[in-house]
């Protein structure tokens, strides 16, 4: 019941709540039965991608539409000095930067196991300031921190063991202040980090590599047929090549900040061809389709 309530408040409508609820109750059972029935064979992955689009991407795209519309409207108003259209009160929209601040991006990687094709990724990050400044660090020992950490964790546990019954424990946890597994809000004087504003260590690019196993296996057997040794055939046929990079569509970006990803999401939702190429890459150019 708690799961249902939280899912409902998180996703705000019954339809999506049911999707999530299916996940939470049956997820493990389905995963286990799929593993037994199909090995590691991919099943219903197109359906999964549709779900990602519906649950995560669509919502963001809609919000961005509102944000960009209001911002266009505001700049239009500033230009002409008067309202363009009469109408009801517009909902106040945050700026794109402010909206992006609430998000973080979970990057989920393709695998070496050929669920689709083998793949991995090389990320690039901003080192400009690092190059410009002398490394001024003096490595600070971590010994003291880890000794203290051990004590802190033990003390924390002892504190909870001191509660006589689960009701007292519940009350203490419900006061949240004692629950150290919940962070304090970010102090407002701290600036946004490399995920949100371009700076040292911000991600700037990625290159996605893949091994096209259909071609590689074919070349390998062709070489064997032409009297190459197994080792020679393997060495000559096996290679990873660039599948795509973040400077290709739909990314086509110079930075990989959270707001860049949100803009990419909007493109993906609006442009079906881009979505198709995104899906093709999700399945590592293996040509996978649901049965």
């Amino acid at each position, binding site marked *: 019941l708690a799961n249902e309530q939280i899912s409902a408040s998180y996703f705000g409508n019954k339809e999506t709540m049911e999707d999530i609820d299916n996940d939470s109750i049956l997820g493990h059972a389905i995963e286990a039965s799929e593993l037994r029935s199909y090995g590691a064979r991919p099943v219903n992955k197109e359906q999964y991608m549709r779900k990602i689009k519906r649950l995560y991407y669509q919502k963001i795209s809609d919000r961005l539409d509102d944000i960009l519309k209001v911002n266009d409207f505001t700049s239009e108003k500033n230009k002409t000095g008067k309202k363009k259209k009469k109408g009801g009160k517009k909902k106040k929209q945050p700026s794109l930067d402010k909206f992006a601040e609430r998000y973080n991006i979970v990057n989920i990687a393709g695998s070496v196991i050929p669920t689709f094709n083998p793949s991995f990724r090389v990320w690039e990050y901003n080192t400009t300031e690092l190059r410009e400044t002398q490394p001024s660090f003096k490595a*600070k020992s971590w010994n003291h921190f880890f000794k203290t950490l051990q004590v802190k964790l033990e003390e924390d546990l002892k504190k909870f063991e001191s509660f006589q019954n689960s009701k007292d424990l519940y009350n203490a946890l419900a006061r949240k202040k004692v629950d150290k597994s919940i962070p304090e809000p970010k102090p407002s004087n701290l600036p946004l980090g490399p995920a949100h504003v371009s700076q040292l260590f911000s991600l700037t690019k990625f290159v996605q590599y893949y091994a096209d196993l259909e071609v590689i296996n074919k070349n390998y057997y062709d070489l064997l047929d032409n009297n190459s040794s197994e080792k020679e055939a393997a060495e000559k046929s096996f290679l990873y090549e660039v599948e795509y990079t973040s400077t290709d569509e739909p990314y086509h970006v110079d930075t990989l900040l959270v707001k860049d990803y949100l803009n990419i999401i909007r493109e993906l939702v609006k442009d079906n061809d881009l979505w198709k190429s995104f899906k093709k890459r999700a399945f590592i150019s293996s040509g996978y389709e649901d049965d």
Partner: protein
Amino acid sequence: NTSDGSKKTIHGRFLHITDIHPDAFYKEGTSIDNVCHSNKPDRKKDFAPYFGAPKSGCDSPMELMEYTLKWVADNLKNKIDFVIWTGDNIRHDNDRYHPRNEFQIFDMNELVSGKFHDIFKNQNSKNPRDFDVHVIPSLGNNDVFPHNLFSLGPTLQTREFFKIWNTYIPEEQQHIFNKVASFFVEVIPGKLAVLSINTLYLYKANPLVDNCNSPKTPGYQLLLWLGYVLEELRARGMKVILSGHVPPIPKNYENSCYHKYNLWTYEYRDIIITGLYGHMNMDHFIPLNGKKSRNIIDSTDFIA
């Protein structure tokens, strides 16, 4: 390099590699229907090829792993600063004639770990902890026995993984690793750290994960570790990359664990660069809303 004072070139590039799943039972020319372990194929499409069969359900032949790592060593090693390697270093448990056991899992993990070490260690140093390219491994749900099940340490499994990853885990983190199977590496000393997070403590398919609210649960303890580490890294003015096997999305994490983890990511947005995960074998990304997690956690019935 703080261990010997030598200079290193920072390339501004790193590798993320995951889910190798090498399978010592994979046999070329066997039947895909028998997970590439046995029997003759009954049709052309059922043939298990030398480098592996995409979309088939078979794991990776050992040759696929060997040639992948060789390709990385030949083509990338001298161009990257560190390697994030997010687990699942053994075959799936999908062949009832060859059920996996704990020793096979440890042995294969040891073998793969040794290969990474051989490639990325400092070839001119006698110190095994000295790397040309730092490697940050994390634990996959197939790397533990039984499948998915992993309890708070110290246990045989946390000790065993400490042994296997000994050279990757900084010495001062040995005790805490034995408890939470997580650690971090300062890939650029004093500037940039990569966290290896044991996501199995948050993973809903781990039968030992009921929630992250009760202080005795593995997830709660892991989040405490995460919080203290992030706090210290922030205090030192460092930036952080999060890494782990199971991605932190509602499909995978127990509900309270998901919201709490997501909230840490949100509240430390001044230092977190990104989060890199494996497990799902598909190349994609998911945006998560930290503000919503804050609202949910602040609601009165969250603890209930």
